[in-house]
């Protein structure tokens, strides 16, 4: 256990503090929510051995002045259908898949992974467009996935399953998949109207149960604001997840700019979303709860990040520099990972970072925290900015 030289003001005036941080200083935070978060003071639970985990996988390029992002290994997102999705939900229409690496044939997937391993890539997020029943057809890929895990056991594969069948869940486990993820929808209207599915809420719970019974690492997601930007089934989804033994919960927030203009989404109410962060934290006190990579852009993103950390979420993907400034001010220790937030966090890495924290210089820690066992790899993106 480390002794920190940073002292934390127990009853820090959060509103006043936010007013001192450039970029957060004039944002319209909900004072009542800030007061409630202040009362709970959940951020004080962050310690050297239970730091805020920051995730920066390479499927999105983010340049932070306060994070050593160029020292990151590769962790891309790969779609087995390219940008194609038969389901054509109103919130995305397949557009989220478009920038991903396409592996529309199993051998293509193998080649991608071989290239990643050669460049010291640590893992990948595997997903794809689904059919009209929200099932993603991984069947042709199971053999090659098993082959990949056999050849490269350290290469982590996180699969977004869609509504997995029992057979698929078992096949993922047999192939050695490291982590499976699925969006849990808690409102029938959302399933029917946004997803155009003839499925029920219970189908989502059943799919989650099938994944959990395999013993794989299961990390369900709740997409906040999925009903055209409104919060509707989120609390029911939380209830469903509470009934199952999951390894972590990832909260993401719908991104309205992906929606079709003919069926537009509004930006979910950031304050109601912040309150849901608090509810999720309370509902799952012993389960990791994290803010994932998807959320609206701009000032809404900044406010959501602040609410997530003040609510005491365990991890956050792609935080902005403003959030890092707040973490500095609140003396919150940071662990930085170049991987998807659903993947397991290597404990030995956390210890190494905690050691680095002793030098009492958070900026230096972020530079040191490039994980010397993961050699430096530059993103193979077309062009840099």
């Amino acid at each position, binding site marked *: 256990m480390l002794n920190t030289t940073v002292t934390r003001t127990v009853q820090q005036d959060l509103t006043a503090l936010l007013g001192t941080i*450039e970029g957060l200083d004039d944002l319209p935070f909900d004072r009542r929510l800030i007061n409630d978060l202040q009362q709970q003071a959940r951020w004080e639970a962050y310690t050297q051995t239970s730091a805020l985990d920051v995730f920066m996988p390479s499927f999105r390029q983010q340049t932070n*002045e306060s994070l050593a992002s160029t020292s990151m290994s590769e962790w891309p997102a790969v779609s087995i259908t390219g940008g194609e999705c038969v389901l054509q939900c109103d919130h995305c229409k397949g557009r989220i898949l478009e920038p991903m690496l396409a592996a529309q044939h199993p051998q293509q997937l193998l080649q991608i992974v071989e290239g990643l391993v050669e460049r010291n890539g640590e893992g990948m997020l595997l997903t794809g467009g689904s059919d009209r029943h929200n099932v993603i057809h991984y069947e042709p890929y199971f053999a090659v996935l098993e082959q990949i895990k056999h050849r490269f056991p350290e290469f982590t594969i996180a699969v977004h399953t869609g509504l997995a069948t029992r057979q698929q869940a078992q096949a993922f486990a047999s192939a050695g998949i490291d982590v499976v993820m699925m969006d849990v929808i808690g409102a029938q209207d959302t399933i029917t109207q946004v997803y155009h599915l003839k499925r029920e809420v219970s189908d989502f719970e059943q799919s989650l149960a099938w994944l959990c019974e395999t013993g794989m690492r299961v990390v369900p997601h709740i997409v906040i604001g999925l009903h055209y930007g409104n919060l509707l089934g989120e609390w029911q989804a939380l209830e469903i997840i509470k009934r199952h033994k999951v390894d972590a919960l990832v909260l993401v927030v719908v*991104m309205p700019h992906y929606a079709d203009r003919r069926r537009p989404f509004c930006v979910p109410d950031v304050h109601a979303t912040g309150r849901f962060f608090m509810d999720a934290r309370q509902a799952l006190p012993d389960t990791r709860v994290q803010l994932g990579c998807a959320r609206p852009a*701009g*000032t809404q*993103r900044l406010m959501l990040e602040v609410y997530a950390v003040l609510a005491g979420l365990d991890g956050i993907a792609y935080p902005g520099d403003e959030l890092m400034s707040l973490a500095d001010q609140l003396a919150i220790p940071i662990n930085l990972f170049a991987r998807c937030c659903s993947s397991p966090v290597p404990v030995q890495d956390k210890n190494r970072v905690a050691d680095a924290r002793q030098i009492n210089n958070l900026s230096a820690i972020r530079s040191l925290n490039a994980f010397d066992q993961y050699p430096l790899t530059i993103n193979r993106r*077309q*062009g*840099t900015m």
Partner: protein
Amino acid sequence: MTTVRGCEMPDTLLYDIEANVWCRLEDSGLLTLGMTAYACSLSGDIVACMPRKPGKEVQQGKSCATVESGKWVGPVKAPVAGEIVEVNQQAVDDPTSINEDPYGAGWLIRMRPLDWQTESIRLLGGQAARDAYAAKMDEEGFGGC
């Protein structure tokens, strides 16, 4: 309009090649700057722009705005040191203007340079800028705007 690999590059502007930023010294002594067409092409559709506030002093190479697209979040780096005096609220309110008209309606910042004579030496214009961008695009495997 002069182009490099299909990306517009007006001859009347100076460019910070590394930061992928254009700038223009106005008669008023203020410097107007924004993202190049090349930068806009790399980032894809921009969905948010958060410039730093007027009155803020920024150093050369440091962020004067944060810009987000669906696949990228990053800083727009100041080509020279200076004080921000004006931000383009239209680009903040409607970030699509940055992609649609990067050298016009999509400008981002006006700043008062601290030492234009010294710091502007590293900025390129005309053929030198076009050559530098062509080399950069080659190096980065850029297919074109």
